[in-house]
């Protein structure tokens, strides 16, 4: 009797969320998959055209170009974010002065909107830094990096890393907090140096957090959108057009809704595959205490 009542309560708690989730997430997703087999332009009439869109996804130079940029960006950013945030977390975990205040400050970028951060950085890149370059006669930075086809992506990496490191620092900090102090005492007595302690005690024990951070960062960077919109809008040329941005620009304003839906479906599987491979590979390295 009691059990039956509980089930009903749980059901009532879950159902509204289920309805909301289905109507705003699952249904549009299914719609997108459906339209990827048509020649739908986002409005008006459409016909089924089979898998033509999927064939075109692999032949379209714009799409291949966006994959190139996105992966270059995501891999470099993921590596940098993890190096930087682990370093910062180690520093904040030690008993430096004001470490609580500093933790708050280092978390700041995470609560700022990427678009706003992006516009501020755009000003820095295209006005502030070139002005410094001009007044000190440094040729290399006298022109905006955002206008350079070969280097504009670096500016996006800088903003992406600056913003994303905040969350990863917090995750690493919580990981570091799980390591018992006596392990360090014991290894210290055995004569381990600081580096050996990090290499053989700290790093293996925070491996699960390393996995999470790598996967989350990679996934987020692969879906990069706001940074690019705020900084370059995909330019110059198509040099910083990310996959998400291409799907949005061509899909909605370019009248290629169906093709970009197919692109999105393909991309979905790419991200899932990468995440699974990452988890499999990294989990092997984790140790249990």
């Amino acid at each position, binding site marked *: 009797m009691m059990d039956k009542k509980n089930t*009903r309560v749980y*059901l*009532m708690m879950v*159902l*509204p969320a289920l*309805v*909301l989730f289905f*109507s705003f997430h699952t249904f549009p997703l299914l719609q997108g998959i459906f339209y990827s087999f048509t020649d739908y332009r*986002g*409005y*008006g009439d459409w016909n089924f055209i089979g898998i033509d869109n999927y064939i075109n996804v692999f032949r379209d130079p714009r799409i291949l170009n966006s994959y190139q940029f996105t992966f270059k960006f995501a891999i470099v950013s993921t590596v940098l974010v993890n190096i930087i945030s682990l370093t910062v977390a180690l520093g904040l975990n030690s008993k430096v002065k004001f470490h609580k205040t500093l933790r708050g400050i280092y978390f700041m970028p995470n609560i700022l909107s990427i678009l706003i951060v992006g516009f501020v950085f755009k000003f820095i890149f*295209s*006005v502030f830094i*070139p002005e410094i370059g001009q007044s000190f006669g440094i040729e290399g930075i*006298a*022109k*905006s*990096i*955002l*206008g*350079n*086809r070969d280097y504009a992506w670096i500016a996006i990496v800088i903003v992406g890393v600056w913003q994303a490191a905040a969350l990863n620092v917090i995750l690493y900090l919580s990981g570091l907090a799980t390591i018992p102090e006596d392990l360090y005492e014991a290894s210290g007595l055995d004569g381990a140096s600081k580096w050996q302690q990090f290499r053989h005690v700290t790093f293996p024990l925070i491996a699960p957090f390393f996995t999470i951070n790598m996967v989350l960062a990679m996934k987020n960077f692969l879906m990069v959108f706001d940074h690019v919109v705020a900084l370059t*809008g*995909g*330019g*110059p*040329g*198509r040099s910083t057009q990310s996959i998400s941005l291409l799907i*949005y620009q*061509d899909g*909605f*304003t*370019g*009248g*290629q*809704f169906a093709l970009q839906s197919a692109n999105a479906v393909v991309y979905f599987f790419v991200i899932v595959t990468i995440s699974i491979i990452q988890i499999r590979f990294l989990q092997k390295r984790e140790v249990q205490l």
Partner: protein
Amino acid sequence: MNKMIKGVIVLLLALLVLAACGGDDTTDNEASNGTSGDQVELEFFQFKSEAVREFDALIEKFEAENPNIKVVQNNSPDADTVLFSRLSQNDIPDVLTINGGVTFGEVARAGVLKDLSGDPLLDTVTDEYEDMLKRLSRTDELYAFPHSVNANGVIYNKTIFNDLGLEIPTTWDEFISLLDEIQAAGVNPLMSTYGEAWTILPPLNTIASNTHGMEFFDELEAGNTSFTDVYGEIAEKLLTLLPYAENDVFGSDYNMGNTAFANGEAAMYLQGVWALGPILEANPELEVGVFPMPATNGHNSIVSGVDVAIAIADDSDHPEEAQQFVEFLLQPENVEFYLETQRMFAAVDGAEQTDPALQELQPFFEVGDVLPFSDHYYPQGYAVEVMFQDYILGGSLEDLLAEMDSEYERLSQ
């Protein structure tokens, strides 16, 4: 069984909550102001961020004359995208302004706008622009009223021109020697902001339209010509202009260009008349004029298009009120009020642009010596500005022309 019924009730309740969220605005409005039960609310989708204040003032005037109608202006920064995504949800604003470009053609063909052909209001509208809109939608029906029209040109700093004793050029060769002369005098001849790709379009359109005319598009559709045949000369001319811009061309965007030009950092600026507003806002003291860009050594026309066209949704809940509002917006005095700050030209009779900065263009409009924007006649999604940005950044001419042709083929299917 009992459990089933309860489950269904919960589901219905959840749907009810959803329905309330997406509920009709008018009911919300009635509930909140509670004064008159039959006040009608119109959504006015307006794409120009620089004209929000002007339309707000006009709306205020309209609401004072028609107390039973409330107009809500909706301006979003990426209006085209918003409009297309609303189109895909079949949620069309009651009254909307659209730029007379590719977007208009697509929206008009989607069959969601009211057919305005034969409307008595059209008697006051200039025929050329009515035709331009019909050509964009490729229909015999007219789906929007032309409201105001723009023009491309060379915005020039009169002070610099006077100081250096320069004359307005009328041919391409004269234009190039003028650029040389300014550069020799140690002044930056051109302001270019190609970091923002669309700012390539004003000079590109002027050169393209004057070089190949509108027949090119008929020939292209018939398969008698290609971009490779025609655009080599156009691309090379555009590239010729690049070294005359001494600012950080690819590091600047439109706003930066306006501000820099307003501060006297260049003698000329290849833009549209729409840039005059922001320029003079940044520096009201600037002595500025506009002349038609001489794109060829033959006859050069002004390149002009419908800047604001006003359309009514075919399925508007309040068609009469919408029509009333559109009629109000097209009254000459209201168009003229709009033109005071917007520096465009009127598409309706009886409203004139009196800004001294624009007087050099006025004669072209009087005799109708105008050509449409070329980029309005490429297929939707044809990112000509991005292709040219790539080319100007150092791409090869062969790549550009090949991409232009293959993109045309892909998108015009």
